[in-house]
């Protein structure tokens, strides 16, 4: 029997006390508490350009040569996933968590005319469906990323949580007012070139964060126009806050990639070519897919009788989506595509009008 088990004293080795990462580190909390930016000090703040960490140890911890290799990490180069403001986005995500059960004033929902309720439920069905993909895919990439890049991983984990809440809040909306779920669109199924099938993190991020969620963000920001009651206004407002972080992740990552791996710029342009093709497609609720665009038109017009008014608003929103997309891509450092004729966005804006 061991000494610990039988209560007898045993001699301690304590050799581990000499095997540490950099010592005498004293991170201080600032105005916003002790953030992960505050602990990125000294060697602990240095994420390697290429990670050789295959045991999953915390960045900066002392390595144990005999430790088992556990990580067959696919993402081991910093420029594949890094962004400069991950700490900010993660801490903000923690501060802005909300509860769809208790923070939405569900009691403000009043019965709506049947056509409007059907439209609300169709849109909610669609949003439930697209939020699924935005939760699934980042989770998969987290599992493939070395913990040496833990800051972006933390943001992606917050995103998975956010998307989970979005899924549930739109399901709740569909079932809260005398309606029900309607027909799924299938817009996020396993199409070639879809977010699911991306083989590279940046490829995925350009589709999911920059184009996909960017389009949804524009829509959520129109929540005051779409909402029929205070509950819906709160839902769109809170979802927009979350979505803005996700879009910021994608833009900032693209910017980092652009600056640190210029040899990949042409490849990224190809991803953006594809993403632009989908901007008015099935995965965009104000795109050209009948069930969602028609339901949006009813919502924005205030009923079937004002369908044309609603559709004209949709076109205006679609134009705004494209303009905001262009701003984001410029901010990410890929603006030349709008000047050298490569991008079709200007033409799409014209066509939308």
């Amino acid at each position, binding site marked *: 029997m*061991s000494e610990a*088990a039988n209560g007898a*004293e045993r001699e*301690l*080795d304590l050799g581990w*006390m000499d095997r*540490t*990462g950099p*010592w*005498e*580190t004293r991170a201080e*909390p600032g*105005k916003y*508490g002790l*953030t*992960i*930016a505050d*602990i990125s000090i000294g060697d*602990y703040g240095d994420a390697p350009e290429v990670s050789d960490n295959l045991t*999953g140890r*915390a960045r*900066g*911890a002392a390595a144990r040569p005999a430790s*088992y290799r556990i990580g067959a990490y696919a993402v081991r180069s910093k420029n594949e996933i890094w962004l400069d403001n*991950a700490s900010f986005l993660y801490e903000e995500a923690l*501060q802005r*968590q*909300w*509860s*769809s*059960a*208790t923070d939405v004033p*569900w009691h403000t929902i009043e019965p709506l005319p049947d056509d409007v309720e059907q439209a609300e439920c169709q849109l909610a069905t669609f949003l439930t469906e697209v939020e699924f993909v935005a*939760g699934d895919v980042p*989770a*998969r990439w987290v*599992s493939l990323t070395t913990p040496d890049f833990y800051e972006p991983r933390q943001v992606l*984990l*917050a995103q998975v*949580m956010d998307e*989970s809440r979005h*899924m*549930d809040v739109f*399901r*709740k909306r569909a*079932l809260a007012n*005398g309606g*029900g*779920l*309607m*027909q*799924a669109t299938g817009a996020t199924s*396993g199409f070639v070139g879809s977010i699911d099938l991306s083989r590279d993190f940046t490829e995925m991020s350009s589709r999911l964060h920059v184009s996909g969620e960017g389009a949804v963000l524009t829509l959520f920001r129109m929540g*005051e126009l779409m909402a029929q009651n205070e509950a819906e206004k709160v839902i769109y407002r809170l979802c927009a806050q979350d979505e803005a972080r996700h879009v910021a992740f994608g833009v900032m990552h693209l910017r980092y990639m652009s600056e640190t791996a210029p040899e990949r710029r042409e490849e990224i342009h190809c991803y953006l070519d594809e993403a632009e093709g989908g901007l008015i497609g099935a995965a965009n609720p104000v795109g050209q897919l*009948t069930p969602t665009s028609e339901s949006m*038109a009813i919502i924005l017009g205030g009923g079937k009788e004002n369908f044309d008014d609603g559709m*004209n*608003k949709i076109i*205006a929103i679609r*134009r705004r989506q494209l303009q905001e997309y262009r701003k984001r891509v410029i901010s990410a450092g890929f603006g030349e595509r709008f000047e050298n004729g490569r991008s079709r966005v200007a033409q799409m804006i014209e066509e939308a009008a």
Partner: protein
Amino acid sequence: MANKPAAKPSSPNQPAQKPVPPKSTASDEKRTFEPKYNWMNKTRQWGVRVKPGKAGLRLGDLNVGIYGETPTQWADQSRNPRGAVPRRGMPPVGYSIRDKAGLWADCAADLYEEAIQRRWAPATDVPWDTIEPLPDDVEHAVCQVCTELVGYANVDIETITGWQHQMSYGYHEVKQFLATASFDAARHYECFRKRALANGGGLGLEGPGMVNRMILESRGGWTEAVVYLLIMRGTFAMTLYKYLGRHAHNDAERFIYGHALADKARHVTYALDHLKYAMAHADDVLQVVRTLIAIGEGGLTRDLRDPVLAEALAVVFGRGVAKAAGRGMAVYGDMMRDYVATYLGYCQWLGVPRDPARLPPPLNEYANPTGAEA
């Protein structure tokens, strides 16, 4: 880097800036359209009006009528929300977990809402200003323990996220609960790292990693991963948090361990509920779990024979090296007896009782509640 978060979240009820409506051009206003409305009236159940209760409108409240039907197999390979009218002919997404027995737990929806209500932010909720300098040996030990706990959180993150996307949406409650579990793990990851770097110390030596590998290599199914990640490791982590909370040096540590314990308790609750369900509804799962446990105990004991974590804990419990071998190791022994008793209790409850005498050493040495030699 200007990595500072916003000072305070805006209240969910605070009015947002009213958006400026997009401009419609003159040409827009003239356009007319011919809607098809072929999506209208396509629903499997209409007229549903779920009302919020005392605790708000919870995920589980939505399980009414067909929307609450969770079939034993979910054949749909698309992202069709449960209860929606499916669209035929959609290319499959390719989920590997489509049997209810492979993931289900009745408590998942409640645990999801509970996790959201009990959320906390390490940056601002932990009273970091209560941390005072500790004797060097104690600080070394705390930092070593935190390094191990960061490693545990890392495995939680990598394992759960590796499975989440493989689970079909017929059982969205579980996927949603697991989103909270991986987010909890993210919080634990940063929190223990913060503690290690906040008081004049640093990170210590990485763990031996046998159990980490065992958990991550549980590729047979999510249920297998649950046995290792949440029952074996989860119960061990929970016991560590409990004892570390009792021996905390300041309010910051007490807060951290207390909240990590509450989070971990939810994960273990899910695990017990899921395993009970799986054993009751799928052939052979009980036998598989019995075998997994026997194999897993071997891996666990290999990690436990490594002295680093035990010694670091003994220094924490003994309040220094001087009393680590005596008082510290005695508390460590108590902790291990507590862990083994809890673990054996869970095995018993699950219907896979373990004979304490047949546990591999050193686990068997802690199976005797009195601590006396058998």
